[in-house]
């Protein structure tokens, strides 16, 4: 099954996939069991082979056993896998000083990225400042905004360091889908939702919008570059140099 899935490029991807595979094993056992039983009874009890039906029908407690088995399997999945794994995703965020922190602001049909720059603080944004040149409405008069780096559809991140994304949207609901990272989170206007992961493989990946957002939904593709720490620093330095002649 893994061969059908995209590569695992984040620290938690294997855990998610392990659970997905376990659930599929449960499904396969149930389906093959049911299916084999089904084919057998349909063949065995066709009217040609069994002209007189039994009023009493099946005896025994196989079905009880099956139902209890399903309950136990689902409880194990829930208690030992699903609930703890979800808690890690939505509760145990990395501390901001140990993570690459970035804002992602979705719009029809692009991903806007805001890096806080060397000061580690995001500059203020205002809806009334939004324009084609300033798609997130960054207020450059804000002192902490001066070193903020903004990108469109280009998300660069260093490998092996936790990433904390503050996700929001300017217009409609989008969904931030990083398939290789096993990350998906709706970007909802009016809300800022944190997402975190640790990229573990250097490479180029897609950001795929996963929630219908209008005509251009199908081409709302961003580019995620996971780079070595040195490459990332170099890229970031170049971007910061580009900022100097303040617009």
């Amino acid at each position, binding site marked *: *099954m893994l061969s*059908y*899935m*995209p590569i695992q490029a984040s620290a938690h991807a294997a855990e*998610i*996939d392990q*659970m*997905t595979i376990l659930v599929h094993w449960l*499904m396969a056992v*149930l*389906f093959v069991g*049911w299916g084999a039983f089904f084919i057998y*009874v*349909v063949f065995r*009890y*066709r*009217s040609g082979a069994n002209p007189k*039906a*039994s*009023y009493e*029908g*099946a005896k025994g407690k196989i*079905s009880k056993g099956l139902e209890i088995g*399903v*309950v136990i399997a*689902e409880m194990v*999945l*829930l208690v030992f896998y*699903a*609930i703890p*794994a*979800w808690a890690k995703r939505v*509760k145990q965020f990395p501390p901001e000083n140990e993570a690459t922190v970035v804002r992602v602001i979705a*719009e*029809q049909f692009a991903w806007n990225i805001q890096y806080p720059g060397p000061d580690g603080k995001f500059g203020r944004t205002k*809806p009334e400042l*939004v*324009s084609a040149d300033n798609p997130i409405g960054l207020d450059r008069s804000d002192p902490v905004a001066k070193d903020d780096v903004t990108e469109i559809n280009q998300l660069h991140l260093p490998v092996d360091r936790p990433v904390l994304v503050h996700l929001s949207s*300017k*217009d*409609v609901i989008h*969904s931030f889908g990083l*398939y290789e990272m*096993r990350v*998906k989170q*709706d970007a*909802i*206007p*009016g*809300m800022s939702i944190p997402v975190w992961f640790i990229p573990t493989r250097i490479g180029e*990946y897609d950001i795929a*919008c*996963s929630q*219908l*957002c*209008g*005509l251009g*939904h*199908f*081409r709302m593709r961003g580019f995620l570059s996971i780079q070595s720490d040195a490459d990332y620093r170099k890229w970031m330095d170049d971007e910061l140099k580009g900022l100097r002649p303040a617009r």
Partner: protein
Amino acid sequence: MDKSATHHPTVAHPHVEHAHEELGFWRTYVFSVDHKWIGIQYAVTGLLFLLFGFTLMMLMRWQLAYPGRPIPLIGGLFGQDKAPGGIMLPEFYNQLGAMHGTIMVFMGVVPLAVGGFGNFVLPLQIGAPDMAFPKINMMSYWAYFLGGVTMLASFFMPGGAAQSGWTSYPPLSVINQGQQTMWLIGMMFLITSSLLGSLNFITTTVQLRAKGLSWMRLPFFVWAQFVTSFLLLLAFPPLEAAGILQLMDKVAGTSFFMPSGLVVSNRIVTSMTGIAQGSVASGGGNPLLWQHLFWFLAHPEVYVLILPAMGIVSEIIANNTRKPLWGYRALVYSLVFLGFMSFIVWAHHMFMTGMGTTMSAFFQTTTMIISIPSVVILTALLMSLVGASIRFTTPMLFALAFLPMFGIGGLTGLPLGLAPSDIHLHDTYYVIGHFHYVVAPGTIFALFGGVYYWFPKATGRKMNDLLGQLHFWGSLVAINLVFFPMFIEGLAGMNRRMYDGGAQFAHTKSVLYWNVVQGYAAWALGLFQLFFIVNFFMSIKWGKAVDRNPWEATTLEWAAPSPPPHGNFLTEPIAYRAPYEYSVPGAAKDFTPQFEPERA
């Protein structure tokens, strides 16, 4: 109230009183208050909408298989604003997508399963002369009809039909082009229709059961319709309210679902009634409120789609195994529990909206719990086959196929119902595969089985078995070729609702060829439906004429003539025993109908 139809069945020969009353053409065939004719109106309209909704999908499948290539043969019919030069535009694709879902769920499956089968079969099965409120019943059909007309008309209006998915999530649905307003008005009619219908079904089942027909003697189909009616009655009002709120956001500039500070195409949204107009939008709304209200209906709605199907399948299985259903009581209790639980699982559709641990733990747990009664029902139906003497009639083929198909649909719900595995699969084709297995080769197969099964009751003639078998086997193969590859596409990360089938993205390149396979399978599936359509119309006229109980069945509808007259039964039916007394030891025949008096 219509006096003729509300007689308590203890009044002997309820039909006699109005047998002389001649109704004209309009009151017999158009504005009929007879539950059987309303049922047939519902069923035929529902079948036509199913065909129409499926046609929309066959068009979309072309675009998915061959993105940007002109639609062959009929491409020129859609006009410049939908498909210039026969090439489908993204706005047309999104209209087809939104309307396919809306039509199949609200105008196809539910009207056929509840309005059609419920109306036709339920009063007969409980031995009633008609529904409790025949005129309300008629209103219910006509509200549905108006809803359907509204939805269809929207295709031809400026901007075309709604294009924000059948889920109509704001803010997109509010700011998007397309006739979202017509969609909302159409939904009002459809919801009203369901509310009127469900009230009627509940009252009828409680009040008009024949003498001797205690609750535990009810056919399982009646139980299924009864629980379904409660789901409709309790779940639809929140969506009706939500629909009105969205309509206000759309036409009156309110902001129930519109947050502050929206910026669309780099311009601040000033008024929801048109970005260009000047008045300032208040903002302060919450898009997630819509999702909660929508799924509070739309999850029970899933059970509205599946429970009547389970009811139909149970009837057909009992009849064609020639033995009682296994575990009747467990089936009934599971059904009621399923209905209750369906109200507290809705937010498992919303794991990706930023849900915390407590909420997600709650909804994951309820979702796992709701799988248990489904397992009980499926197992009981399978165990019913043990010791049977199975007749492979056409309805039975569909009922048998329902079991593994619904099995796949149910099982694939598990990884979606657990939030961590849902991260990868949410909004991919895996979801589409999952719910289509439940509704298409699941519910719709059961509905076809029901048409073949009750057709003799409605018309006095049987449908052709050879055409029925061709319809069945062809559909079974084709439909699996359409839907099974979706699980592979979903695992690969192919997103749903993509105009080009996901061709833009690197991670889905390896599974794109399935789009072509699914295209051909979908068109083949369309061709196999011709066997059904021909059979349906041919059999009305030339089908083999049958008596009142051609399947040698046990429930009360088979006591009435085929087709039953106005008022249904020639003598007042009395239920003497449980619904599925087949192969009773010591009995002369292998079926002992509910309506057959005990021998002294």
